[in-house]
Structure formats: structure tokens, C-alpha cells
């Protein structure tokens, strides 16, 4: 299982060329992905490639979607910010800040109503804690005791603005848990084992009828906010310090210390790299989507007809 996680981590690092990367934040997706049951629900943001991948969505589908190809998870209709793979419980990536938080509550409500034992896990950023939907969702989930785990990935910045400049509390997630009758939980999000353990506990609690959790995991994105952003607003020191805490080499070190051999890890690296190469090649060779799909699937009958 550890290897699986390492595998996931490495894998993430190799997904390139897109819009909102989570390089540096891989431990969060890896830890949660491992802790979830296969029928649990993931809701994430535009920065959701990792979260979608770890649920089992195909790498070709993801890369193809980023490239706007027919083989994309959404046939090119969604794009980088909207990855979704319902068959894998990846219930969508939402690009309006906070909007997916009540939707995740709704999926949790449905699980509660159907007594299915499923849990919804919802990822969002530090900046998202200042928008109204955050507040409505947390209160709603708490009052209805819904099986949903809200995970604030605090990477210190909204887009280009430091989170401390626009937030009334130091820890945007943890310092607000009490406003919803929840326990404050604040962890190092670059420690994949800790993330995994914390995720397991919160998911188990939700599954057992213990209601929602709000977790704040502290991490950092190595790059800018999006492709257009070189991230120059960040102090060099800060970037350097966090690069030194890159979860991937850190975890490699840990695995080595635990006795996994260098060559085993190199093999995994190579395998992952090969898989990424293959996925990229497949996506590259996939055609652009046929134009007539633009008119399909607005409605459940497959059409987009609005008149008789």
C-alpha cells in the first residue's frame, strides 16, 4: 500500500503542461486517495488533476482532456478545470470558488438517505474559506450531520495574494471549525503518512454517522497559480524552504530508510514514467472531438433541443 502511495506520488509529478498544477501538494491527493473506499465521492477544484487520477481515472483521459482531444475524460467538452469520472467516484472538478462545497454536502446527504455508507470528500484551497458557500456548506453539513470530509489545502496563497492579507484568522480552516461545532484539525500536508492517517480517521467517523469534519492541511504549490503565472510574488526564501520539503523526495527517503531498495524505487519511477509517456502518446495521437458533440448531452435524452 505504501508502494501504491509512492506510485501515486511519483505519478503526479509527471503530469505536465496544464493549467492549474498541484506540484508540491501531491501528498494530499495520495493520502486521501488511499484512505477512500472505491465508492466514496471526490469533489475537487480546477486544481484537481491529482485528486481525479488517484480515484482511478485514466491518465490518457486526463491528458487527453487537457489537450482538448476526443479521448479526453469529457471528450474535450469540460477541459482542464472540470475533470470528472463518475464511474470512479470522481464527481467533478468545479471552477467557481466554493461552489462544489454544498454539492459535496448533497452527495453526502444522498448517501445518508440511501444508507449506503459512502462518504464525500471535498477539497478546496485556503482562499476558498472566505467565500459564502464555504460557510453555508459547513453549517448545513454539521446540522444534518452529513458524512462529508472538507479538506482545506492551505498553500498560503489565493491566486497571487498571500492568504494572510485577506483572512481574519491565522489558520483559515482550523480557526473556523468551532463556528460549526467542529474540532479544529491542522496537519502537515506534505507528510503523506500523516495525511493518510488523518483522512482515515475523518472518513471513518463520517462513515460511522459521526458527521462532517473540516481538516486544514498545510502545503505549498511549487509553481504559480496557473500556466500564466510565474509566481514572482513569493519570497525566494519561502519557495526555497518549501522546495526542500517536497513530499516526493521526502517520501522516497522515508521508503529507503524503511528498507525499500533504491532499485525498487527506480523501477517504479521508470514504470510510472513509461505509463505517462504512453498516455501522452495516446492523447497526442487522439483526434480533436467531432464537432457535432457540441450539440449533445445537455439533456438526459442526449440532445440540446430547446424547442419543438
Amino acid at each position, binding site marked *: 500500500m505504501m508502494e501504491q502511495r509512492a506510485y501515486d506520488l511519483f505519478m503526479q509529478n509527471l503530469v505536465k503542461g496544464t493549467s492549474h498544477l498541484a506540484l508540491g501538494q501531491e501528498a494530499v491527493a495520495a493520502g486521501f486517495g488511499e484512505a477512500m473506499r472505491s465508492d466514496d465521492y471526490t469533489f475537487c477544484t480546477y486544481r484537481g488533476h491529482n485528486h481525479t487520477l488517484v480515484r482511478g481515472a485514466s491518465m490518457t483521459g486526463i491528458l487527453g482532456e487537457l489537450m482538448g482531444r476526443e479521448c479526453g475524460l469529457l471528450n474535450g467538452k469540460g477541459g482542464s478545470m472540470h475533470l470528472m469520472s463518475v464511474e470512479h467516484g470522481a*464527481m467533478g472538478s468545479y471552477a467557481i470558488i466554493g461552489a462544489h462545497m454544498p454539492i459535496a*454536502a448533497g452527495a453526502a*446527504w444522498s448517501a445518508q438517505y440511501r444508507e449506503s455508507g459512502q462518504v464525500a470528500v471535498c477539497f478546496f484551497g485556503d482562499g476558498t474559506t472566505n467565500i459564502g458557500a464555504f460557510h453555508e456548506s459547513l453549517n448545513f453539513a454539521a446540522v444534518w450531520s452529513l458524512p462529508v470530509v472538507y479538506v482545506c489545502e492551505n498553500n498560503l496563497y489565493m491566486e497571487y495574494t498571500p492568504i494572510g492579507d485577506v483572512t481574519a484568522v491565522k489558520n483559515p480552516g482550523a480557526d473556523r471549525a468551532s463556528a460549526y461545532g467542529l474540532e479544529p484539525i491542522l496537519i502537515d500536508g506534505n507528510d503523506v503518512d500523516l495525511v493518510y492517517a488523518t483522512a482515515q480517521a475523518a472518513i471513518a467517523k463520517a462513515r460511522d454517522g459521526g458527521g462532517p469534519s473540516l481538516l486544514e492541511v498545510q502545503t505549498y504549490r511549487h509553481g504559480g497559480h496557473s500556466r500564466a503565472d510565474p509566481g514572482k510574488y513569493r519570497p525566494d526564501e519561502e519557495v526555497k524552504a518549501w522546495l526542500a520539503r517536497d513530499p516526493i523526495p521526502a517520501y522516497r527517503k522515508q521508503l529507503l530508510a524503511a528498507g525499500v531498495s533504491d532499485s525498487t524505487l527506480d523501477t517504479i519511477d521508470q514504470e510510472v514514467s513509461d505509463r505517462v509517456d504512453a498516455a501522452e502518446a495516446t492523447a497526442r495521437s487522439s483526434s480533436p472531438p467531432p464537432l457535432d458533440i457540441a450539440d449533445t448531452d445537455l439533456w438526459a435524452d442526449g440532445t440540446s433541443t*430547446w424547442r419543438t
Partner: protein
Amino acid sequence: MAQLSYREAVSAAISQEMRLDDRVVFIGEDVAAAGGVFKTTEGLQAEFGPVRVRDTPIAEQAILGAAMGAAMTGLRPVAEIMFSDFFAVCWDIVVNQIAKTRFMSAGQCSFPLVIRSANGGGARFGAQHSQSVENWAMAVPGLKVVAPSSPADVKGLLAASIRDPDPVLFFEQKSLYGTKGEVPDGECVEPLGKAKVLREGSDVTIVGLAAMVPKALKAAEILQDKHGISATVIDVRSLVPLDTTTIFESVSATGRLVTVEENPRLCGWGAEVSSLVAEELFWDLEGPIVRVTTPHIPLPSADALEDAVLPSVDRIVENVVRLAD
């Protein structure tokens, strides 16, 4: 046939569907224990229990987000937004999330949900509780939009909306809640997307929606009696899907079209209908297309003022007469 009020027809439809399908659940503010501020959902919690009929906090984004998340994972939620003006506080969930996600995901999941809301003026509630906003909804791809004018249609169209596999915004007109009418006994479902010809005439086609329908009918009587003008009256009932077939057939026959809208003038549904006719039926037209609307202002509160600005029977008559001249 039973006599039901427009208000009673709402709970009749919801309870009919809840009896048939366990996946149907109903949530909103003050809707469960108290039966709703318009008393449209009285008795539902008593019959179906507090798990299926549930009160929420004042948090419209949470309400509609919850409905969306539930719909995409197997339930068929009905949610209430108390006054349609409040769509503005949760518009993102409606237009950016519910309306788009099926399309964006290339059909990976569907959103069988209904959002009911009390719409429109005439109750002297002032500008923040009186708007007709069905045109806001019509402008958004991915939403079906229904607005009944009679108790029978409330029951039949709401039942159909709940069964529909797509998101439906269901506008109940506040000023009609007290009106009564015959509603068929037993299971009652009326297909979406069909306009209804309520009166046939040869000189002009009057197209109305919701509270404008009884006014249009009244106007048609006066036009016949006082002016010798014979009007067809069509109740649009559903803006999306839009029954252009029925409307076009009539306009082809009469050569004249008047739309009657409660919404403020600009970009109302009547503009869309007018533009469709002006494009596709131009050669059949025998005169201008006239729109009767509320002026492009918020609704004032005082009774005298509100009555003066909402489209009235007299205003409809005048406009048709002007057109026919």
C-alpha cells in the same frame, strides 16, 4: 374532478410523486414542520416524515447545492426557493453548476431535480419579493422552465417536472395561489413542452404565461364583445422546451402576435418569441409584433402603483386594438 386551489395543487403533486417514488425528497426553508410560508406544502412532513421532508437553514446555496449533489447520486430532490427573487443569492449553483455539469461531463450524470419558487407581483411585497424572473432562467442553457396558470397545470406539470430527468425550474405565480379550478382525480401528469390553446380566434394570437393567462383570456372576451376582434389565447406553460409549433401554427393563421409578460421589458421571454416569429414566420405576419410587459422598472410597493405598472386587462385590450387598426 376535485376543486383545488393553485396552492393546494402544489402539495397534491409532490405527495403524488413521493408516494410513487422513494427517491423523491423535499427540502427548503420553513417548508416542513410549518408547511411553507405560502402554505403550499402543508401536510407533507406529516405524511412522509422528517427524513424525506426537511427544513433547512437560511442558506440557499446550500439548499440548491445539496439538491444538485443528491440528484447526481441517485435521489430526485425537490427544493423550494421561497421567493424567486432569492434565486439571485444562489444563482451560481443554478446557472454555473446545475445547468452546465451534464453538458461539460459529456453526459456522465444527470440532474433530475426540481426547484420550485413563488414568482411575481401583485402582493404589495415591494421590489425584492415581487419580480417575475422566468426570463432569467430561460436565458440559461441547461434549465427547463415551467410556469403554470391553473391548478390542474400545477399538479400535472409539477408531477412531470419531478419525473423529468433534467433540472426544472418551476415558477408558481404568487398572485394565483388563491385561485381555484378543477383538477383531475387520480394520477395526473401533463407533458412538459406543450403550449395550450385556451381560446381560438382568427384575428390575433395572444400569448401569455402564468398570471398573464387569465388576464389575456379576459382581454379576449372584451375584444370580442366590444371590438369585434377574435383572439386566440395561448398559454405557453413551458418556456424551455418552448412549443414553437403551437405558437407558429396560430400566428400563421391569424397573422398577428401579441405577447403578454409580467417581467420587466428588456430581454423578456416575449422578446425571444417575437424574434423567433420575426425570423421564421415573417412572411405570414400582417402587422407588427406587439409586446405588453411591465415597464423596465423594479416593482413599486404601494397597491395603486403596483396595479398601474403590471400588465392589466385594459392594457392588453388597448394594445391589441392598436395593432388591429
